[in-house]
């Protein structure tokens, strides 16, 4: 049974990797300069010529791209190939403004699917596995990306898409699915539904899950692993760069290996744009060095994280990224304090509550308010009013210790917070409406 999907790339020495990256980068910069007027203008403005980029050491000379550039150049402004050479489009959900559309040639799709196949192989998947894809299919990259990877890895692929949870479980049982791919919040919901149907992990054959496309905590991982009886692997990606499979987790479960033969990562200071040394916390930046149709150079992801070249017991030499501490888009500033939903989730699970919660931020009388509704399980309920209020106070206190600001906690009935079959809605910020 193969341990790696592309062993030569996944276990390449750092010296050889740097050489490969340099060759690919030089070629890519010429391709972009010649075919993308939008980026050529940025380079010209900065006074950088393609000839100035001779290796990865020169990467820092290139201008950044941000989500704002993608919106400005929408839809065709960053395209580097004629549309006749493109075979596919994917798009972001566009919840925070204009959608981002990304284009793929057949070659781009092939490489992307290889990246996903690496993730599936790392999770123990091969031709003996049945892989259930419960990410949404369509413009969202999750479904089609893992679908293609599962095909390549030779798994029997169940293209379920998201939704209809009881049917998901029925197929899972009838067809003996061994690997589940979906968002972590949907995996948690499938686990809950399984138990509601009176079933246990012994009634299904799942052994692994590949979960991504939204932030999740280590505690949530353990709870999903328990409810489905599996090992849960993280996967990272973004539509702008390709989709899921930009980075993936191995059995060590301590960070995700970046497919750096395709995507060069950098960590920068989000304020100054300066490149930070390995091990620093900063904003993650990616440069696509193999993509043909939509090759973004130095794209700022807004994800805050850390890179590490520490030797991994799985044998892969690909650099690892820690789970992002949050997207700067997710970060809320409440009463002047930086708050990430993941911090609140960590406290909830530590205190024995379900990871089903809703954060509501508002501004009343010029002060920010933070209200957190949390589902309690029936055992946590008491017929004594004081017990319930004490529980709310204790939870508010624990959250205050974590964040430094006082929230108002509301315990609510189990299952009263809407479940999502795609990306979970965890935060409602009403302050934006008043501006």
């Amino acid at each position, binding site marked *: 049974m193969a341990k790696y999907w592309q062993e030569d790339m996944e276990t390449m020495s750092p010296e050889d990797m740097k050489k490969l990256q340099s060759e690919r980068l030089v070629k890519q910069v010429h391709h972009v300069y010649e075919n993308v007027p939008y980026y050529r203008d940025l380079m010209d403005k900065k006074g950088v010529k393609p000839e100035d980029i001779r290796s990865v050491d020169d990467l820092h000379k290139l201008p950044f791209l941000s989500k704002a550039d993608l919106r400005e150049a929408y839809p065709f402004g960053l395209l580097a190939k004629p549309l006749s050479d493109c075979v596919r489009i994917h798009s972001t959900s566009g919840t925070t403004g204009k959608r981002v559309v990304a284009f793929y040639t057949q070659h781009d799709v092939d490489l992307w699917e290889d990246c996903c196949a690496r993730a599936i192989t790392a999770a123990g998947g091969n031709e003996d596995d049945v892989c259930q894809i419960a990410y949404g299919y369509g413009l969202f990259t999750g479904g089609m990306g893992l679908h293609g990877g599962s095909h390549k890895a030779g798994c029997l692929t169940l293209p379920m898409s998201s939704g209809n949870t009881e049917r998901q479980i029925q197929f899972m049982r009838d067809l003996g699915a061994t690997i589940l791919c979906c968002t972590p919040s949907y995996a948690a919901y499938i686990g809950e539904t399984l138990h509601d149907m009176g079933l246990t992990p012994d009634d299904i054959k799942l052994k692994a899950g590949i979960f991504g496309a939204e932030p999740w905590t280590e505690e949530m991982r353990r709870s999903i692993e328990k409810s489905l009886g599996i090992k849960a692997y993280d996967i990272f990606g973004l539509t702008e760069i390709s989709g899921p499979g930009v980075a993936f987790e191995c059995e060590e479960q301590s960070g995700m290996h970046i497919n750096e033969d395709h995507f060069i990562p950098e960590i920068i200071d989000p304020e100054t744009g300066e490149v930070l040394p390995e091990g620093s916390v900063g904003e993650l930046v990616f440069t696509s060095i193999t993509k043909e149709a939509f090759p973004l150079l130095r794209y700022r992801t807004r994800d805050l994280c850390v890179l590490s070249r520490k030797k991994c017991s799985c044998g892969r030499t690909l650099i690892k990224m820690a789970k992002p501490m949050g997207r700067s888009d997710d970060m809320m500033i409440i009463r002047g304090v930086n708050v990430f939903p993941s911090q609140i989730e960590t406290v909830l699970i530590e205190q024995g509550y379900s990871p089903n919660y809703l954060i509501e931020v508002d501004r009343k009388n010029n002060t920010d308010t933070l209200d957190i509704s949390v589902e309690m399980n029936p055992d946590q309920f008491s017929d004594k009013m004081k017990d*319930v209020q004490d529980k709310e106070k204790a939870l508010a206190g624990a959250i205050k210790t974590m964040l430094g600001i006082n929230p108002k906690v509301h315990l609510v009935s189990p299952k009263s917070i809407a479940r999502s079959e795609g990306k979970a809605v965890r935060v409602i910020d009403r302050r934006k409406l008043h501006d």
Partner: protein
Amino acid sequence: MDTIKQISIFVENQPGKLAELTRLLADADIDLRTLSLADTRDFGILRVIVNKPDETEKLLKANEWTYKTADVIGVKLPDRPGGVAEVLEAINEAGVNVEYMYAFVNRIPGRADTVFRVDDIETTLKALTAKGIEILSPEEAYNG
């Protein structure tokens, strides 16, 4: 032991929630022998004593209401000044705390039956019996 099963149900403070809950019980032909509602801004706890406690529990569970059961004591209080004070004094002398109490919908002239939730049932029952205070049996509580 002569205790009564009380069912406490978590009710979120949303319009129609309480109506929805009582309609559910009514449609299953469950008689609310007595009830008490404690409430805050966000939620309430509806405490009920019903004629069919086990059936009520099943119904709540099936409809995903959050509830808890507790054993409470029903006391046959004489309906006259000092009736409550005497019972509370007896409980207090026994060193027991009363968590909360509420009155039955009275049907018997001269009696004001009351429900007590205490932190030590056995001691309370002994103390009340010793004072000659009559305890309501589950049979009387559920079926009147």
